[in-house]
């Protein structure tokens, strides 16, 4: 079914305004997809999370109390939380059922890349994936999305000092792994 953008707009009021929600989708879909993809690696998972993110954003946009400028952080926050929940459910399961192999995100990585595994891009991403999830989230938001610490703080709920420490450790660890 082809959905007319205008058909969903009237229900999305509040800070975003009448024509705003369609503009949000048009503006942020690509950038949010890449943020999600870097977090969850698998394209299909990223696609599902992106859709879920827009559904949630649409449901709650009416009660959104922040400023127009902060809506970017709000969307990133929804996306990041969904990614963290997904990673926890998919890779940190306590019980392994019959025929259900234990996997980790690095096992999936080699199936999901379009560059040779020994390319600098692939090695860099692999090094990044070996970091603890918190460090990796901070690194992605700072390095790839170039967000200021104040905004990352709004997204992750961590203090700016903690973020700076996490980013520093992430950089050091990546340097070590890439120098080997």
């Amino acid at each position: 079914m082809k959905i007319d953008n205008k058909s969903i707009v009237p229900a999305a009021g509040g800070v975003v305004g009448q024509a705003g929600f369609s503009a949000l989708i048009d503006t942020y879909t690509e950038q949010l997809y890449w943020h999600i993809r870097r977090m969850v690696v698998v394209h299909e998972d990223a696609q599902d999370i992106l859709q879920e993110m827009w559904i949630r954003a649409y449901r709650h946009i009416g009660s959104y109390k922040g400023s127009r400028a902060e809506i970017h952080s709000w969307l990133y926050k929804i996306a990041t939380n969904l990614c963290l929940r997904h990673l926890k459910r998919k890779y940190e399961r306590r019980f392994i059922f019959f025929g259900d192999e234990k996997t980790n995100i690095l096992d999936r990585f080699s199936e999901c890349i379009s560059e040779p595994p020994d390319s600098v891009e692939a090695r860099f991403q692999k090094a990044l994936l070996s970091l603890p999830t918190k460090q990796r989230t901070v690194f992605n938001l700072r390095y790839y999305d170039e967000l200021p610490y104040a905004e990352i703080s709004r997204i992750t709920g961590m203090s700016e000092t903690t973020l700076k420490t996490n980013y520093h450790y992430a950089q050091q660890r990546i340097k070590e792994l890439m120098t080997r």
Partner: protein
Amino acid sequence: MKEFDFNEVGRRMPYSVPEGFFEKAEQNAYAAIADGTARHRPRIMRSTMAIASAATVFIGATVLGIHTFRDRQTVTDPQQQYCLLLTEVSDNTVEEISANYMEDYNDL
């Protein structure tokens, strides 16, 4: 050994997406919203259903608990014990229990 320079990789990534994916993704987002909104129940309705489910489980557990407690109450009378045993064991062991019971009962 030469230290790794982040500029060597920049923001390049080893991932790719199918051609035309982002145009399709926007359309999918609108479709997902339409579908998700249709499936979405109001919060109050979800809360009522959650409370009703919890109440059903609680009542069920209470009834089952009382029933089990009553069954497990100590029976001191040998005849009652015998009757309870007969309801709990298979036919093969009934004769054996009967024999033991008769011995015990004769001692009384």
